[in-house]
């Protein structure tokens, strides 16, 4: 059933960078029959097949982000200005949140909904759209990996680790010959390890009582699944020769001062990952520590974290918005890339990719997780508007409703999120 990939390489350029890569499959093979008919800009339900969620630790300064008017005719704002060229391709949400309890760990509510530890939006989506790619999902981080916040939780409540080194992501996606050889060796020899422990487990099964058979079957199941995962990776290693010409800097931009540079690269790597169909689900966490940035050659006069605790000081807010404008520039450039890059049908990736930029922090100055500024782009949804909700209205629209619509657009059978299931009317 595999398309002939080995001989179908082509070269494309993106922002001065060249890469050779195999052709994309036009639709996930598992779903090709039902929902594989992307048709351009028309809103067509269930046609999206990729999801990117970006989360900013310190959020966005809402006064510089939210437009004053709702609907299509809103006047653009300082933070939305970098995105103006894509105005028709995104929706701005104000006043949406999860009605979750406030507290020190509650940034994580962003993708979990009301309860921290519940399965996150991206993982629900991955159950539908992530099954045929090499990686079900990718978790990335720009800046230092936080010790408290976690962005992604599995169904079992396990927080997934994030990668903050571009070189590690790059190796994972486009292994160099040396690395590939080692991974291949470990995967192949690892199979005999699995065969052997299966014997160990059978021996154990004879020693345990009836009650423990159940517990042991958990082990057998995991063993089988791990074996499948390993063969999947081995197959991809064996038959895909991805040669990407994207040039990473000689150093990993993990120093706090270089976070914005790292953010830019992570966005680029996500675009490449989608383009090469290495994965269809990725998240990016943007850290919020005390980094002092240099923007356009000028060093900001206080750390990012100090800026976020602005206490309404005009100078601090000005600098904070400068940093946040950089996030928006990264996002705008990413959206541009997804418009330029196309899938195997020649359709822009953006048409079938839902891109969300949001946060679990409504107001970093007060550590509040109410009223979370959010933006959603692409994915064949009807964009171009500013939609407002009242965060004080207990029965008002919630961020979970946005998620419900996103899941629907991705063809997920899950039709509720954190006890809400209404969806967004303006999108239907």
């Amino acid at each position: 059933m595999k398309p002939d990939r080995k001989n179908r390489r082509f070269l494309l350029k993106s922002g001065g960078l060249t890469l050779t890569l195999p052709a994309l499959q036009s639709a996930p093979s598992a779903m090709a029959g039902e929902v594989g008919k992307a048709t351009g800009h028309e809103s067509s339900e269930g046609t999206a097949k990729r999801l990117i969620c970006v989360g900013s630790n310190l959020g966005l300064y809402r006064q510089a982000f939210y437009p004053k008017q709702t609907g299509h005719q809103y006047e653009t704002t300082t933070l939305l200005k970098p995105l103006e060229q894509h105005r028709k391709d995104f929706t701005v949400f104000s006043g949406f949140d999860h009605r979750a309890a406030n507290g020190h760990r509650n940034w994580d509510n962003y993708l979990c909904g009301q309860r921290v530890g519940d399965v996150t939006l991206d993982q629900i989506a991955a159950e539908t759209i992530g099954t045929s790619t090499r990686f079900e999902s990718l978790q990335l981080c720009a800046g230092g990996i936080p010790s408290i916040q976690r962005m992604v939780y599995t169904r079992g409540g396990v927080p997934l680790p994030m990668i903050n080194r571009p070189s590690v992501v790059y190796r994972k996606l486009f292994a160099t010959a040396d690395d590939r050889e080692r991974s291949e060796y470990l995967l192949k020899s690892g199979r005999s390890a699995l065969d052997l422990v299966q014997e160990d487990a059978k021996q154990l099964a004879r020693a345990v009582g009836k009650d423990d058979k159940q517990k042991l079957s958990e082990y057998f199941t995991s063993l089988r699944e791990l074996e499948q995962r390993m063969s999947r990776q081995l197959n991809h290693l064996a038959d895909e020769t991805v040669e990407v010409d994207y040039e990473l800097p000689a150093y990993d931009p993990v120093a706090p001062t270089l976070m914005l540079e790292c953010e830019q690269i992570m966005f680029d790597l996500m675009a490449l990952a989608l383009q090469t169909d290495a994965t269809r689900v990725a998240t990016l966490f943007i850290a919020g520590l005390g980094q002092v940035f240099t923007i356009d050659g000028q060093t900001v006069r206080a750390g990012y974290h100090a800026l976020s605790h602005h206490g309404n000081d005009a100078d601090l807010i000005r600098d904070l918005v400068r940093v946040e404008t950089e996030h928006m520039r990264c996002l705008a450039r990413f959206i541009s890339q997804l418009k330029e890059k196309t899938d195997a049908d020649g359709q822009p990736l953006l048409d079938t990719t839902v891109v969300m930029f949001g946060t679990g922090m409504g107001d970093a100055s007060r550590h509040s997780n109410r009223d979370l500024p959010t933006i959603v782009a692409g994915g064949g949804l009807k964009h171009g508007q500013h939609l407002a909700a009242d965060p004080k209205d207990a029965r008002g629209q919630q961020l979970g409703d946005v998620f419900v619509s996103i899941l629907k657009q991705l063809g997920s059978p899950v039709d509720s999120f954190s006890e809400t299931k209404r969806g967004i009317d303006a999108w239907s």
Partner: protein
Amino acid sequence: MLGRKGVFVLIATVMFWSSVQCWAEGKGKRDARAVLQEFCMDCHDRSAAEGDFVLPLEASSWNQPDAVKSLELVHTMIEKKIMPPVDMDQPSEADRRVVLDWLDKTLIDNSPLGGTPLRRLSGREYANTVSQIFGLTDYSLPAGFPPDNQQHGFDNQGEALVIAASHLESMADAATQIADQFFPPPRKTVSIKTFDVPAKDLVISYSSACLIDGAMRLASSGTNVNRHATWPTKFEAPVSGRYRIEITASSFDPRNASKPVPALLVEATQMTGDEAKQSSLRIKPGPKQTFEFEIGLDAGATIRMRYANGPFDYEDKAAYTKFLETLLVQEPEIAAAWKKLRSPARGGSGWERLKEVMASKDLDVPPLQPGSDALKQAVKSVSSNAVSSGETLVYKFFEEGPFIAIERLRITGPMAQYQDRDQQRLARKREQFVGELADRFDQAALQRFLAKFLRSTFRRAPTQAEIDRYTKLVQREHQKTGSLDDGLHLAVRTALISPAFLYRSIGPGQLSDHELASRLSYFLTSAPPDETLLKLAESGRLSSSGELEKQTRRLLKNSNTFAEDFTSQWLGLDAVDRLMPDARLIRLFSNDHRQGMRKEVVMTFQHVLDRNQSVTQLIAPDFVFTNEAVGREIYDLPSFKATAKKGKQKTSKAMKQVAVDPEGRVGGLLSMPAIMMATANGVDTQPVLRGVWLLENILGSPPPEPPKAVPALTPDTAGATSPKARLAAHMAEPSCAACHREIDPLGFVLENFDPIGRWRETYPVYTEQDGKSKRADGLPIDATGTLPSGEDLRDVTDLKKYLVAKPTRFAGCLSEKLMTYATGRSLNYRERQIVSGIVVAAGENDLKFADLIVELVDSEVFRTK
């Protein structure tokens, strides 16, 4: 599953049968099931199943695990008088007694001993086990290793320790990393390179540094590297090795050019190796100087630089205050400008603003005299937010000095010599691990190696079949790749994902000697059995009572892991690390506070255990262990006030034992700040949480799970309604009252402790003024309460008295927790009765802690799977 018809027939049978019984026993004593039938079955038969609960009255089902669990719940509900609900007909006391007696007998007859499921090593146990097997003393789990689910507050419960593909995948990855340590993959040779680092490629983190005139200036000092150090942004050691460092720097001091000579401390960012990895450079004021030296760097590490004796450190409170006292006397215009701006913005913008105000002619600058109240006021207003003002004032020193200016760095390496040494070190490690295989390789030597390795990994001697399997695995891989090391690497990776390694509590009924060794060892050391235990298990001697006691005492003596791991989980102390208390409660909540709080619990526990004192010493001891931060700022102990007056600069981190009145409010679990903090949320106290905590962890009478539909009530202490009035709402609602009657009155007994464990007599009321919050006294605390058994309590000291007077109550609770932690299962009714019997017997012996543990270990409950 029964069909609808079946259910009907069953109910009809039960009803008929019950009434026959009733009739048969005549007017005298009623049959328990008849009582249950009358008062319970209207709501809890199969058709109504109120609250999703069906009461199993059929004798045929009593030995089914589900039925036993249901009957236990019925016992709790009836004993605590939660059921029948108060607005329904109530059985007489005699009827209740009849039911309880019957339940007691039925439960004891039908509850089997034991039943711990196959138990996977928890993450904590996994790390300790790897560390012991491979002698990797500083081993810790790789980042991203899946955390474990908790049950009953413990991370080692068989049922909750599930395994999924992602667990197994993480374990396989971890195993590869471990195997790599002994059989590393071939390394690429790295050529020597030179990295030039201009000043602009150094990190500015928070306000640690400032780029002026092409050099990176440092002006503050302190140990927090994020706030006071700088390091190259674009250099990390490509491989472990020695690197040559060249630093060009200068310093400037406007006041005194000779002393102290500014010292630039240069150190490796990862300090794991055994080599000295730092260097202190004396940078004399004046022209640029270049320094050259070598430093050892691990792969991925870089060097960071700090101004070790800089002009000020705003994170040391005492030192910062002293610094400001001098500064503001010399430059009172700073104080005046600060006052005018109220609180300037944090960082460089704030400093610019201060300078503007200081330059304006109309600024009124009153002089500040040393020791004056005006000075104290000024210092206080600047230092009240030390981090914020420090990040602002540091810009003054960036501009005016003293500062160190780093011009550029050049890093060259790795030097070859170090690489060779590193190779040798790895070779030695491999040699130690493989033993005789290093010199001679034949089938017999390989079998001996595997027998030894699998014995330590599986915690028992491997079977011949197992040895053969692993031998074949190694040989095949050896043949395939031509490298024996590849085969051994694979054997390590395989054994570490084998169920024989991952699981314990194997085999039904009474534990084998090997399983007993594992249970005992993980219970008391969180690690696998040592050689002594393995040998005893192999010779079948461990299970004798005498030997088991001897080993229990030996492990108790040699380990402090037990005190640390058990108390942390039993009392839920992880919360102390997670919570950041509201800044209005305490301005600077430091690591010293956290450490002091947590260590106190462990040291108290260890103290009582080591001396084999009565467990009541945990409740009302005549001592506390504390450090200066907690002793002075939380406990407010007189002995620490004295040290403060002596004007000591640095607070001591050392833990001290301080005598207290055993009948007073300080001392013991019920007043420990760690516990008060863990049972609050860092902002306010919630009597309900503390009440539940007391019932669950001290009194051993946990309330049943709250119904799902009811939202939690959070008391609002700021308004006029007192928390007590708020919680009275619970009592008004009958379905709430059933449980809260027990919970709330107990919770209030601890209300004198604020969310960080400080004693208080009133609730605080906060008001905002000029963006700053002010605290005033609000309503007085009412800490009176009632015990479930009816005794009135005035405050926490009465509760302590009660627990000391009725010591088996607390000892019983503690013993159940110990057994849950040890066996990895929740005890059933019958097992709780057995444990209770042990506690009562130990009561004859003053409930000596170590003796009690010995008795518990020797019990059938501990010895059964």
